[in-house]
């Protein structure tokens, strides 16, 4: 695994460079917005990556909490399966299909619902209770970074195109609220340094996820009453633009994965060090057998081994 890291890093760098070249040079200039529109190739992939990371955080938190009690685990597992089944079938029922916003295909809703369940069970299979919490921290931190990029690049684009830096539009407000929720999540983790932090943080992540649909409806209703400038206004995207957008998303996802990987290894290492320090303080110098426990203690690891495990 460790050998894969530099290879992936080089690949990501190449992909990012190629994506940047495509976005800045090859992509056709947008007719009305001009070159400003090119920020779109960074804005949208960052947004998708951030949402993906936040979903991963939610699933990891759910898995973490469900691990506490076998009965809770069974209930949550069945609930996730039920959501996947309903989400896969419901969009094809004509009555529900009519309710979907334009441009949203039933197949994409169904795919999302099934993907969520698959991801949930994959996370549960490959991560232990301790590493689930590390995964939650990592995805929340990196997600906040990408969400900040979205919130910074958005106004940079909006100013020349809309004439204003910010508007309380549905998507903008939802992203901002999501950012606020996850910043409060990180604040909780920072301010609580006891052993129950993972549990508290996981509960807060669940609360944040429950909040998102409610925020969506409240802004949706509020904004349909107050007309606002809308993004794009339907229309189809040039296929060349779409290809470059997807290429950039791939590059950004690779970058996010790389950063998450690094942060994950660092967090595991940090926890090992904390545990070893606590053990050492508890037992004193004589308490530890010199060869066995001491040799394996992370305190003795050399800096060259600080890479991802």
């Amino acid at each position, binding site marked *: 695994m460790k050998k894969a890291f530099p290879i992936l890093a080089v690949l990501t760098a190449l992909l990012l460079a190629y994506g940047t070249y495509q976005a800045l040079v090859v992509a056709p200039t947008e007719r009305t917005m001009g070159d400003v529109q090119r920020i779109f190739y960074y804005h949208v992939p960052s947004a998708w990556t951030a949402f993906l990371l936040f979903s991963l955080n939610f699933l990891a938190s759910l898995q973490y*909490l469900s691990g*506490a009690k076998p009965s809770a685990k069974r209930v949550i597992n069945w609930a996730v399966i039920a959501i996947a089944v309903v989400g896969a079938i419901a969009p094809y029922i004509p009555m529900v299909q009519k309710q979907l916003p334009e441009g949203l295909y039933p197949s994409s809703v169904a795919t999302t619902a099934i993907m969520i369940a698959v991801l949930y069970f994959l996370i549960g299979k490959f991560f232990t209770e301790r590493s689930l919490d590390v995964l939650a921290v990592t995805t929340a931190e990196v997600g906040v970074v990408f969400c900040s990029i979205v919130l910074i690049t958005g106004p940079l684009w909006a100013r020349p195109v809309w004439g204003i830096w910010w508007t309380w539009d549905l998507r903008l407000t939802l992203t901002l*609220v999501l950012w*606020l*929720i996850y*910043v*409060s999540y990180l*604040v*909780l983790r920072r*301010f*609580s*340094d*006891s*052993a*129950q932090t993972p*549990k*508290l943080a996981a*509960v*807060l992540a*669940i*609360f*944040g996820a*429950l*909040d998102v649909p*409610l*925020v969506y*409806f*409240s*802004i949706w*209703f*509020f904004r349909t*009453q107050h007309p606002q400038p809308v993004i794009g206004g339907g229309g189809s995207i040039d296929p060349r633009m779409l290809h470059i957008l997807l290429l950039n998303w791939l590059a950004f996802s690779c970058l996010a994965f790389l950063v998450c990987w690094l942060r994950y290894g660092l967090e595991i290492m940090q926890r090992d060090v904390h545990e070893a320090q606590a053990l050492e303080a508890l037992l004193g110098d004589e308490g530890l057998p010199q060869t066995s426990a001491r040799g394996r203690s992370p305190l003795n690891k050399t800096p060259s081994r600080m890479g991802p495990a």
Partner: protein
Amino acid sequence: MSLLRSITAATLAKDIRLEWRSRDAINSMLFFSLLVVVIFSFAFDPNAEESREIAGGLIWVAFLFAAVVALNQTWARELRNQVLDAYRVSPAPATALFVAKALGNFLLVSLLEALMAPLFMIFYNLRPLGPAWQLIPVAILGTWALVVNGTFVAAMSLRTRSREIMLPLLLFPISIPAIQSMVEATRVVLSGDGSARFWIVLLLTYDVVFTTACLALFETILQAE
């Protein structure tokens, strides 16, 4: 079920008795929201038409800040003589304690609202142009929305550093849809344009979702040690 109810009733009665004897929370909340009312009216200096538009926001922001005062001392009281630890080792269900605390806060904030709302009406020359009775469900559902999450988050922030500031930091982002619903519903009723029905339904949904979540997860929070 009767055990649950009797524990809830006992805890609630104890909290009310304590509050009745000291009157710490209610006095500080009353004075605090009075200050907010006065400062807001200096800061905005609205006429009757404007105040109809902004009063919904002012009232609820004042109540939200005042509620934080009550919420912060909910659990702090139980820490003093290790009451919470005693509760943790007792076989009493955790949800009973939570319901009692949430109800206690609900009563306290409702009392504050009942006392402060007339004052608001006088200071801002408010006269609702829409159906005024709708303000009652908005107030009940809105207060419960603030208090149920507030009580829960206060329990979460118990074991963090600087817990007084943690409560609003955790509570406000989650409460955004509830606050927007309360403010909009109040504004609609006061100015008389449109219907508040959507906002009341949204508040009800918020209450149901988060009351369920709080009841389901409170034991995890209480036992987290």
